[in-house]
């Protein structure tokens, strides 16, 4: 008897995303589909708007990683202007981008995922959220709140506000860094670094307990994509797009980002609004690859800062060069937080960081531009076409959640196969399927989960569509 289970998660709005599981005659999971059902229409309504508005408008795509969209958009605009931005401007953009990385990882790890890790996957959902954590483990929760604050405050100091700051512009940044701001940020780094380090130690001590999750959280081989620096080091702002195979071996380093479509194809499935990017040479769906913190640590040869490199070595000794389970993304995020703190010190201590010439100016010199950066969740690509007056004509965006779409669908199926038993759906099973999505940390789920948990509707239906069992969380 074939059956269908629908999980309707979504951002507190039913209608943004849902999961359907098809069961076969034996009651086993035959297929899993993750549907994105939200539609805001950015691709179209920017048509005709001037280039200089793009970074500010694009930031509005996401309130969690607005800086990533600002940076990718500004880089696409730099290409359209065909300017080389001042060295200090690139450094300052990096500072903001790393601050964003740390705050977003803190949100993802502490506010969203740690309730599962700290209180247990099967804990009462009433308590399994950041507020439950504040009540039960106030010191730990405080660490998370402070680490996020550290990153958000840097963004606020540079851009005037924490969400949708206006400071990154085509050609560079708006204002130079003030010496006092530089010193304030530098004075706060040791505290943030200490939080990241002790949290990582704690995570390493509890990770082995999650054997079942490790085995079933998208634990299968795929390719990986991430930016790397000139010496193969971890990179978030600029550099080559590196594709690696399942073993973490380099396939290609793409330095000319505008050639991305020679390597990345975008497949469209009829049941979702989110496209499926794939590595062209392997075809669809064999060209499945992942992006994000774990992928970045797999494609990079090294981090390039002492403490993070020490942790990366430990990570590889314990897990191998290319660990497959997306559960390890949590681990990767904490290593990146350490890296972010160390790198911020390097950048802020650079002799030219207070230079006042921070913006190159030019009018339109190219009609097509591509900007790529690493968002906390993975590689982000903005591709614009404009007319001679500098007005937008067309755009294409490939966001991290898109790159991960194929792998995420497979991951959901894998978790469902393991935890969903036909006829009856348990709360814990629901949470584990949801936790797989959370391990990928798509913007969607991260936003949906911001206040504790996603809305979920899981339905088990018989062949005639009759409702056999329903479990729902609003």
């Amino acid at each position, binding site marked *: 008897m074939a059956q269908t289970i629908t999980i309707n998660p979504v951002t507190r*709005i039913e209608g943004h995303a849902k999961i359907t599981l098809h069961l076969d005659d034996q009651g086993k999971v035959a297929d899993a589909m993750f549907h994105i059902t939200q539609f805001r229409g950015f*691709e*179209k*309504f920017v048509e005709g708007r*001037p280039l200089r508005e793009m970074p500010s*408008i694009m930031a*509005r795509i996401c309130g969690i990683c607005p800086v990533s969209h600002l940076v990718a958009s500004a880089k696409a605009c730099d290409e359209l202007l065909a300017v080389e931005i001042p060295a200090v401007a690139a450094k300052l953009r990096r500072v903001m981008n790393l601050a964003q990385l740390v705050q977003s990882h803190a949100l993802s790890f502490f506010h969203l995922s740690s309730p599962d890790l700290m209180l247990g996957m099967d804990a009462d959902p009433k308590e399994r*959220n950041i507020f439950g954590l504040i009540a039960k483990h106030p010191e730990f929760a405080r660490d998370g709140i402070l680490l996020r604050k550290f990153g958000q405050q840097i963004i606020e100091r540079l851009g005037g506000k924490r969400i949708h700051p206006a400071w990154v512009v085509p050609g560079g940044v708006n204002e130079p860094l003030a010496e006092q701001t530089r010193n304030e940020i530098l004075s706060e780094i040791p505290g943030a670094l200490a939080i990241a380090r002790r949290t990582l130690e704690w995570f390493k001590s509890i990770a082995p307990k999650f054997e079942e999750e490790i085995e079933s959280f998208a634990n299968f081989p795929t390719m990986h994509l991430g930016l790397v620096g000139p010496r193969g080091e971890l990179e978030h702002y600029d550099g080559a797009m590196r594709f690696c195979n399942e073993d973490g071996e380099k396939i290609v380093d793409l330095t000319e980002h505008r050639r991305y479509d020679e390597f990345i194809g975008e497949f469209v499935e009829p049941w979702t609004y989110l496209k499926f990017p794939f590595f062209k040479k392997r075809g669809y769906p064999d060209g499945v690859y992942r992006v994000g913190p774990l992928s970045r640590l797999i494609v990079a040869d090294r981090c390039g800062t002492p403490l993070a490199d020490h942790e990366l070595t430990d990570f590889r000794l314990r897990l191998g060069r290319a660990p497959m389970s997306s559960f390890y993304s949590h681990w990767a995020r904490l290593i990146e937080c350490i890296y972010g703190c160390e790198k911020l010190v390097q950048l802020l201590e650079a002799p030219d960081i207070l230079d006042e010439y921070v913006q190159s100016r030019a009018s339109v010199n190219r009609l097509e531009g591509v900007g790529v950066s690493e968002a906390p969740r993975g590689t982000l690509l903005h591709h614009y076409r404009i007319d001679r007056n500098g007005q937008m004509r067309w755009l294409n965006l490939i966001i991290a959640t898109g790159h991960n779409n194929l792998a995420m669908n497979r991951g959901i199926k894998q978790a469902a196969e393991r935890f969903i038993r036909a006829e009856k759906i348990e709360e814990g099973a629901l949470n584990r399927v949801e936790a797989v999505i959370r391990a990928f940390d798509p913007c969607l789920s991260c*936003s949906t989960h911001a206040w504790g948990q996603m809305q979920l509707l899981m339905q088990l239906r018989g062949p005639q569509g009759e409702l056999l069992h329903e479990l729902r969380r609003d």
Partner: protein
Amino acid sequence: MAAKPKLAVFKFASCDGCQLSLLDAEDELLAVADAVEIAYFLEARTRTLEGPYDVGLVEGSITTAHDAERIRRIRDQCQFLVTIGACATSGGIQSLRNWADVNEFISQVYAHPEYIKTLATSTPVADHVIVDFELRGCPINKHQLVELVAALLQGRKPRVPRYSVCIDCKRKHVVCVAVAQGVACLGPVTQAGCGVICPAYHRECFGCFGPKEQPNLASLLGHYANRGADAVQLVRLTRNFNGYAPEFREASDDLETAAALGNTPDAPS
């Protein structure tokens, strides 16, 4: 106060930035968690939203038939309903689609448009239900959010300015970009609250906080037109994050009509 007031947060079409502003109030977050019960999630396993709630914060605009139905149910459950951010108060950046053919949008982006179930418009919450208070901004200002929660706890009206961005520019000694650079700036008709970030960076105001109390857009836009701004540029300026707010909407529609008739906007007398 005997029992802790019950607070609920609801989300519609948006970027999540506004509700994250509550998490951004780090110093106040622990106190807030102490003073109110975040009820919507705590009673999260029930089939329907278990109200009533003392306060409902709503983020996002209404873009699907299901949303329109859901906001009515939420209204019934909330004693005091507050919209937070530009999407909820005016329809947000996605309301730009209200001036276009939504099907054209969809077919350009998606290969199988028949799967998209969306309304032709993105509309503010207040178009669907009665709203008790609006917190403006794209995103909202966290200090205003904390003020709102504090005011509600004390049973008083939140103190949020309704005057224009210009007042804050003067207070902060920011040189007027409209006067000094001659650019068309929405500051004179936009509500304060953002901290004048854009003018401080020598950029015009985009109207993130929506229309101020009794704005005079016809006069302001006429002034800019007199100084050489063309109608297309002025329409674009007013159609932004709060483009569907009634005052901004009427102004941009009037400009378009006038331009179609070949008239230039009226100069202020």
